[in-house]
C-alpha cells in the first residue's frame, strides 16, 4: 500500500526500476525466442505470425517499456539529489506518470493473452497496421497501450524540466550543473516536443481502426506515407531521448573514476543541445526509399551526418578525461569504458546509413538491425548498466558485488558483439530483417548460429546481474555516503539511501562538481545555504493510481466497443461505451477529488531532524 500511494521520488525511482526491469525481461525473452527461430535455415520453431508478433513486441517493449522506465528510474533517483532539491517540482504528477506508464505497459502486454499481439512491426507502418492486414486487436493494444504509457512519459518530462529550472540549490547555475542533470534537462525537452506528435499519430491510427476513419487508407483518400512522417518526427528524436541520458551517465562515471574533472564541460553541454536540435531535423532519413526525391534525400542525408560532429566532440572529451587520469576500472567504469568504442561503432554505421544511395542497399537488411542495436544496446544499455552499478549504493544503501559485476560486464559485452557484429555482414550479404526464416546455403547459416550463441551469452550476463542484485539485497545496508570515495556531485554528500527529505539543509554550491570542490578545499561536507528548519513534505495519495486504473479501463472499453460478444451483458456494456464511460468517470472523478481537497502536506520538525 505504501508503494501504491507514495509520492517520494526515490521510491518512484525504485518502482520504475522494478517495472522497467520486468518489461526488459519480457523483451529479452522475446529476443531469445527470435534468435532461436533464426538459429538455422528453414527452422520451424515458430510460425510466421508468431514471429511477427515477437519482433513487434520485442521492439515496442524494449523501447517504450524496458529502457525508458529504467532511464526514468535513474533520473528520479538522482536528479533531485544532484541539483540539491528536496523533491521534484510535482511529486503528485511524478506518481501519476509512473502509474500511467505501468498500466499502459500492462495493457499492451495483455494482448498476448487476449487474442493476439500486435504484428505490424514496432513502427506499425500503415497499411500493414491497418485493419486490412491486421484484423485482430493486436494493433489496438499497441495504439492504446502506447498512448497511455506515452502520457506518463510526457508528464515525467514536464516535471523534470520544471524541477531543473526552478529547484536547483543556491549557487548552482546552469553551467555548474552536473552533466547527467543537463542530459535529463535536454532529454525532457525532446520528450516535450516529440511525444505529442506520436500522440496524434496513435490517435489517427486508432480512429482509422476503430471509427473507420480514412487517414491512412488510400481507398478513402488517405496517405500511408503520412504515418511514416508522423511516426519518425517523433521516432527520430526518440533515439536521442534514449541515448542522451546514457551520455549523461558516462559523463558522470568517467570523471569520478579518473579523478579528473570532465574534459571540455561547456563543449559537452553545447554538444548535447546541438544533438537535440539536429535530432528533430533528420526524421526523413528513415524514409529515403519511400520516394521523397533526390533533393529531400540529399538534405536529410547531410543534416543526419552533421550529428556525427557533436557526438564526436563527446567521444573525444571522454577519452581526454581518462587521458592522464588515475583511472580505476570498477564495474561502472568498465561499462563506461566499454561504451565508448561500442557506441562509436554504432555511430559510424549511422553515418554509412545516412548516405541516401548507400541506404538503398542497406535498407531493411540486418545491417540496419546491427546498427541500431549497436546504438541502443551497445550505447544505451551499457550506459544504463554503468549508471545502475554506479548509483545502486545511493539508491539502496548496498554495494553491488564488484566481482559479479565484472562477470556481468564481460559476458554481456562479448555476447553483444558476437550477436550483432556478424549481423553487419549478414545484412551486406542480403539477409532481410523482419522475415521469419531463410533458405540454406546462402552463407547465412554459420553467422546466424554465431549470432544466436551471442544472444544466449548476453542472457547469461543478465542472469549474473540478477544474481548480483539478489545476493546484494540480502546483505546489510551499510554503504557509506560516498561509497566510490571520489564522488564529485551533491548526491554523494548525503546518506545512502537518502532520508525522505534528501537534504537536512539545502547546500550552497560554489562551483562545478560541488562536492569535489569542497573536498579539495579541505572541507568534509557542503556549507549549508539555510538554517535547520521545518521541512514541508507532500502527502501520500492513491489518486494517481486510481486515475491510471480509470484510463486503463476506458482504453479497454474503447478498444472493444465495436466487437460482437457471445453474452448480451458484455455486448451491452461495451457496445454502448458504458465501460469506457466508467473508466473516464474514475479518472475525472479522481481529478475532481484532487481539485476539491487541497493537499496541505505535512512538516518534519527540526527536533525530528536532529533526532536521527
Amino acid at each position: 500500500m505504501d508503494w501504491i500511494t507514495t509520492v517520494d521520488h526515490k521510491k518512484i525511482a525504485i518502482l520504475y526500476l522494478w517495472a522497467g526491469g520486468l518489461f526488459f525481461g519480457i523483451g529479452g525473452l522475446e529476443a531469445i525466442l527470435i534468435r532461436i527461430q533464426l538459429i538455422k535455415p528453414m527452422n520451424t520453431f515458430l510460425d510466421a505470425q508468431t514471429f511477427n508478433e515477437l519482433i513487434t513486441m520485442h521492439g515496442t517493449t524494449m523501447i517504450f517499456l524496458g529502457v525508458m522506465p529504467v532511464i526514468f528510474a535513474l533520473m528520479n533517483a538522482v536528479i533531485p539529489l544532484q541539483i540539491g532539491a528536496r523533491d521534484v517540482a510535482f511529486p503528485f504528477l511524478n506518481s501519476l506518470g509512473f502509474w500511467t506508464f505501468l498500466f499502459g505497459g500492462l495493457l499492451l502486454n495483455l494482448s498476448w493473452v487476449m487474442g493476439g499481439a500486435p504484428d505490424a512491426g514496432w513502427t506499425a507502418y500503415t497499411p500493414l497496421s491497418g485493419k486490412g492486414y491486421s484484423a485482430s486487436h493486436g494493433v489496438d493494444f499497441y495504439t492504446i497501450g502506447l498512448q497511455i504509457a506515452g502520457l506518463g512519459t510526457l508528464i515525467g518530462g514536464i516535471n523534470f524540466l520544471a524541477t531543473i529550472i526552478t529547484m536547483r540549490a543556491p549557487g548552482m547555475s546552469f553551467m555548474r550543473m552536473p552533466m547527467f542533470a543537463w542530459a535529463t534537462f535536454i532529454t525532457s525537452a525532446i520528450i516535450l516536443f516529440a511525444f505529442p506528435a506520436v500522440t496524434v499519430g496513435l490517435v489517427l491510427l486508432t480512429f482509422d481502426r476503430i471509427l473507420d476513419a480514412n487517414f491512412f487508407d488510400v481507398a478513402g483518400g488517405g496517405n500511408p506515407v503520412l504515418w511514416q512522417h508522423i511516426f519518425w518526427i517523433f521516432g527520430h528524436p526518440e533515439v536521442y531521448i534514449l541515448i542522451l541520458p546514457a551520455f549523461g551517465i558516462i559523463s558522470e562515471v568517467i570523471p569520478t573514476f579518473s579523478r579528473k574533472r570532465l574534459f571540455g564541460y561547456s563543449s559537452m553541454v553545447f554538444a548535447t543541445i546541438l544533438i537535440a536540435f539536429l535530432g528533430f531535423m533528420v526524421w526523413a532519413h528513415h524514409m529515403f526509399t519511400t520516394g521523397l526525391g533526390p533533393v529531400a534525400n540529399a538534405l536529410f542525408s547531410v543534416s543526419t551526418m552533421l550529428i556525427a560532429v557533436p557526438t564526436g566532440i563527446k567521444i573525444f572529451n571522454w577519452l581526454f578525461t581518462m587521458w592522464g587520469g588515475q583511472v580505476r576500472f570498477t564495474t561502472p567504469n568498465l561499462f563506461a569504458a566499454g561504451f565508448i568504442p561500442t557506441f562509436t561503432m554504432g555511430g559510424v554505421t549511422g553515418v554509412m546509413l545516412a548516405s541516401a544511395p548507400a541506404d538503398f542497399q542497406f535498407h531493411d537488411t540486418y545491417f540496419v538491425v546491427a546498427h541500431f542495436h549497436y546504438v541502443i544496446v551497445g550505447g544505451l544499455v551499457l550506459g544504463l548498466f554503468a549508471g545502475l552499478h554506479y548509483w545502486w549504493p545511493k539508491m539502496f544503501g548496498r554495494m553491488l558485488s564488484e566481482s559479479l559485476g565484472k562477470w556481468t560486464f564481460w559476458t554481456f559485452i562479448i555476447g553483444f558483439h558476437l550477436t550483432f557484429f556478424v549481423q553487419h555482414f549478414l545484412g551486406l550479404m542480403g539477409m532481410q530483417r523482419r522475415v521469419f526464416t531463410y533458405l540454406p546455403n546462402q552463407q547465412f547459416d554459420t553467422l546466424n548460429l554465431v549470432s544466436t550463441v551471442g544472444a544466449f551469452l548476453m542472457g547469461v550476463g543478465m542472469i549474473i546481474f540478477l544474481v548480483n542484485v539478489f545476493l546484494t539485497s540480502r546483505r546489510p545496508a551499510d554503504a557509506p555516503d560516498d561509497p566510490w570515495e571520489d564522488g564529485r556531485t551533491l548526491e554523494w554528500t548525503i546518506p545512502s539511501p537518502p532520508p525522505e527529505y534528501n537534504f537536512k539543509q539545502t547546500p550552497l554550491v560554489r562551483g562545478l562538481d560541488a562536492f569535489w570542490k569542497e573536498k579539495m578545499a579541505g572541507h568534509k561536507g557542503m556549507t549549508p545555504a539555510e538554517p535547520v528548519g521545518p521541512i514541508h513534505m507532500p502527502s501520500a495519495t492513491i489518486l494517481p493510481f486510481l486515475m491510471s486504473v480509470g484510463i486503463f479501463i476506458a482504453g479497454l472499453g474503447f478498444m472493444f466497443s465495436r466487437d460482437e460478444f457471445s453474452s448480451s451483458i458484455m455486448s451491452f456494456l461495451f457496445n454502448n461505451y458504458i465501460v469506457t464511460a466508467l473508466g473516464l468517470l474514475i479518472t475525472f472523478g479522481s481529478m475532481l477529488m484532487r481539485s476539491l481537497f487541497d493537499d496541505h502536506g505535512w512538516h518534519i520538525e527540526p527536533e525530528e531532524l536532529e533526532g536521527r
Partner: protein
Amino acid sequence: MTTAHAEAADGTLPHEPEKATLEGRNKVLAFWLFLGGEAVLFGTLFATFLALRNQTNEGPSAAELFHLPLVAAATLLLLVSSLTSVFAIQAMHRGNVAQLRNWLLVTVLLGLAFLILEIYEFSVYVRHEEFGMTTSAFSSAFYTLVGFHGAHVAFGILWIAVLIGQLLHKGLTVVTAPKIYVSAMYWHFIDVVWVFIFTVVYLLGKVG
C-alpha cells in the same frame, strides 16, 4: 517547499498571488511547458489536415460545406471569452473576488455558447450533408482537428467551472490563484488555436 503554503504575514494577498509561492511559480512554468507540447500536438493535427484537405473521396468539399457566418459568430464568441478571462485575471490582481467570479462565469458561458454552435454545425454536416467521420480523408482530418479543439473547449469549461466552485468555497488564496491563472493561460491557448483553425480550415477551405 518550506514556504509553499505560507500566507503573507498580515493576511492580505500579494499583488500577483499566482506567483507568490514556489509551488505557484512552478505551476505557471510547467503550464507554459505543457502548452509547448500542446502546440506540437495541434501542429501535427494541422499538418495532417493540410496534407489531406483536398482528399474528398467524392464526398462534400470544404467550399461546398462551410457556412462562414456561423463560423464567424463562433469565432466572435470565443475571442470575446478570451477578453473576459483577461478581465477576470485583472480583477484577481486587484483582489476583487466578486468581479473575478463574475468574469469567469461570463467566460464559461461564452465558451458554452461556442461549443453549442460547434455541435450544431457538426450535426448539420452529418445529417444534411452526409459528411461523417468515414466519408473521406478530408472529413476524418476535419473532425479530428476541429473535434480535438472542441474537446479542449469542453474540458476548459468543466475546469473553470470547478475553479469557480473552488473560489466560492475557499476564496482567493495563494493556492487557488495559480490554478485560476493557469486556466486563463489554457483558455487563451485554445483561443489562439481557434484563430488558426478559422484561417487554415474555414477561410482556406472557402477560397484556397
